[in-house]
Every structure is written in structure tokens, then in C-alpha cells.
């Protein structure tokens, strides 16, 4: 190795070490989120709904897991499956850390989405997904709590109808604190990155 190559190699190593220590330092202080940081701006995960096994659940039941909440409905053939598929791909990319994540798919169509329909639906996408249903009032209250909205569109005449709904994805840490907000067009790399950070945060006991 000539001296100049040796010097260059040493500089690269030093630079890498500096970046690594900087990253470690930032990670302990303030995570470098790539998604929108909503810490302190949205309320904690809290609801009383029924899961897809027809069991009553509250937000506290998901303590210890990072919760990824998304509003949708099963008669939505395009955007909801696209988002749930993206979340499935993201969790697969996340590896073992994905065991500490739950996708909470909240139905905005209480008239048609029963726990059984939701069970078949969410499991077709990912085994870490939970379908949540509730009364119209309970779901409206939850949507309002997170400044989300949904509207049942007029019947098409054959008893079928669409439900327009906010497409945001909400991320809560393992303590149930709202941390991040993403749109379905957010890059998968950014979501994987932030979920790695979110699942590595310590859970407050």
C-alpha cells in the first residue's frame, strides 16, 4: 500500500467512524425521523372497539407494540388493499422487529364490516394486521380524535356504495404515544427506516 492510498483509506475509516458515532448519539437524543413527526400534536392511542376475533379491545391492549393505524373498509378494492399490501411489504422488510408491530385497520363502514369479514380481509394481507370495528359513533369519535374524516357516498342504486376516507397512516410508539404521520405515497424506505427507530425505542414500563 502506498502512503497516499493508506492515508485516504484512513480518512475514509475516520469519516465512517465519525458518522457512526454521530448517528448513535442522535439516536439516543432525538431520532432522525423521515416521516412527519407529530409527537405532542396528536392524542395517545385510545379507543374502545371490537377486534376481528369479535373481542372487545382498547388502545391499552396494544401497549408494548408499535401500532400502525389506518382507516379503510373492505369493499374498497383499490386504495385500501394497496396501502395494506405496502404495509405488509414494509413489515417483511423490517425483519424480526416486525413482531413488535401491529397494523390496526379501522373500518369506516360499520354497516358492512363485521368482525368475520374483517378477519378474512386483514389476514389476506398480513398476519400482524388487526381489523377493528365499532359503532358508527365510536368510529366517528376515533376519526375525529385523530383529525381524520370519512363520508359515506350515495348508493349507486344497487345497494353498493363507496366510503371516502382520510388516507393518512398513523404511527404510535409502544407506549401508545402518537409519533409519526405518513401518506400512502410515502416511500417504503422511509417507513422501514422510521419503524426500525420506533421499534428500538425503549418501552416505558
Amino acid at each position: 500500500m502506498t502512503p497516499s492510498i493508506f492515508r485516504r483509506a484512513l480518512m475514509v475509516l475516520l469519516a465512517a467512524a465519525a458518522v457512526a458515532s454521530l448517528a448513535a448519539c442522535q439516536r439516543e437524543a432525538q431520532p432522525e425521523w423521515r416521516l412527519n413527526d407529530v409527537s405532542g400534536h396528536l392524542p395517545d392511542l385510545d379507543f374502545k372497539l371490537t377486534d376481528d376475533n369479535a373481542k372487545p379491545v382498547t388502545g391499552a391492549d396494544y401497549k408494548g407494540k408499535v401500532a400502525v393505524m389506518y382507516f379503510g373498509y373492505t369493499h374498497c378494492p383499490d386504495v385500501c388493499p394497496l396501502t395494506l399490501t405496502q404495509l405488509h411489504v414494509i413489515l417483511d422488510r423490517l425483519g424480526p422487529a416486525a413482531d413488535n408491530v401491529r397494523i390496526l385497520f379501522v373500518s369506516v363502514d360499520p354497516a358492512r364490516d363485521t368482525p368475520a369479514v374483517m378477519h378474512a380481509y386483514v389476514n389476506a394481507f398480513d398476519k400482524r394486521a388487526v381489523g377493528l370495528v365499532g359503532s358508527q359513533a365510536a368510529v366517528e369519535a376515533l376519526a375525529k380524535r385523530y383529525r381524520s374524516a370519512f363520508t359515506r357516498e350515495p348508493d349507486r342504486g344497487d345497494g353498493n356504495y363507496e366510503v371516502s376516507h382520510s388516507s393518512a397512516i398513523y404511527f404510535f410508539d409502544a407506549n401508545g404515544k402518537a409519533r409519526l404521520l405518513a401518506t400512502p405515497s410515502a416511500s417504503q424506505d422511509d417507513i422501514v427506516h422510521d419503524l426500525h427507530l420506533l421499534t428500538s425505542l425503549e418501552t416505558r414500563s
Partner: protein
Amino acid sequence: MMVRSLALALILSAGGAAHAADKPAVEAKNGWVRVLPGNLPAGGYLTFENRSDRALSIVGADSPQYGNAMIHRSSTDGGMGRMEMVDSVPLPAKGTLAFAPGGYHVMLMQPKQAVKPGEKITVTFTLSDGEKVPATLLARPANASGPTD
């Protein structure tokens, strides 16, 4: 039924004579359907290639395996996910048009029999000039991202 077979006969006699040796002006490819559990509606996706120098549009869809097929467009403008029925989707001259997740799709409703991943779905699209475009769409699992893995 009668009308449809008459229309088919007309298309076969008129179109068949002129284009028998040629490739059709519009071809559908890379078709797939995202199969959802139960009787839930499914979204179908594909690419249309218009080889002709005439601008056309897709104005209808029909599948023998589903009770009803409609062309829809999804959008997430302003953070709201919504879906609307569309009467016509432009297919530019010498151009392509993609039906893809999050945008245009054919919504297939009321499956006549349970559709399983791996099966082939036949959808016939109608063009603005009355021509039909046959398409074969591969049934894929709910969490598929495209026609192949």
C-alpha cells in the same frame, strides 16, 4: 344475449375481414386481479397499447366470471382516499394506458364462483369505436404488488 351475439357477429364479420392478418389496433397485457376474500369486489389492472394512429378511449368492461364490471378511478387528493366511476378513459394514439393500483382500475363485482389465485379471469373491454379488446387477467393474492412476484 341476442343483442350481444348479433354485435359479436357484426364485429367478427366487419373487423375480421379487414384485420384478419393484422395484429389488433389495441392490445391488453400484464393483466392481474387482486383477489379479496369472500364476495368482496376486486380491482383489475393491466396495460393497453394502442398501435393505431387514432386516439381512442376505453368505455366499458364485461367479464363472464363476474356479475358486474365497472371502470373506476381512485385518488388520494387532499389526503382523502376516494373512488369514482368513469365513463371513458383516454387511450392516446400510438400510446399506452395503464390501469394500476391507486389510479384507474376495473372493479369486478359479484364473482359467480369463488376466484382463487392462479386462475385466469377474462375481461372484455369496449373501445369508443365499438371494437372489443379481450384481456386475460391473472388472479393474484390480496397482498400481491403486481402480475408477478
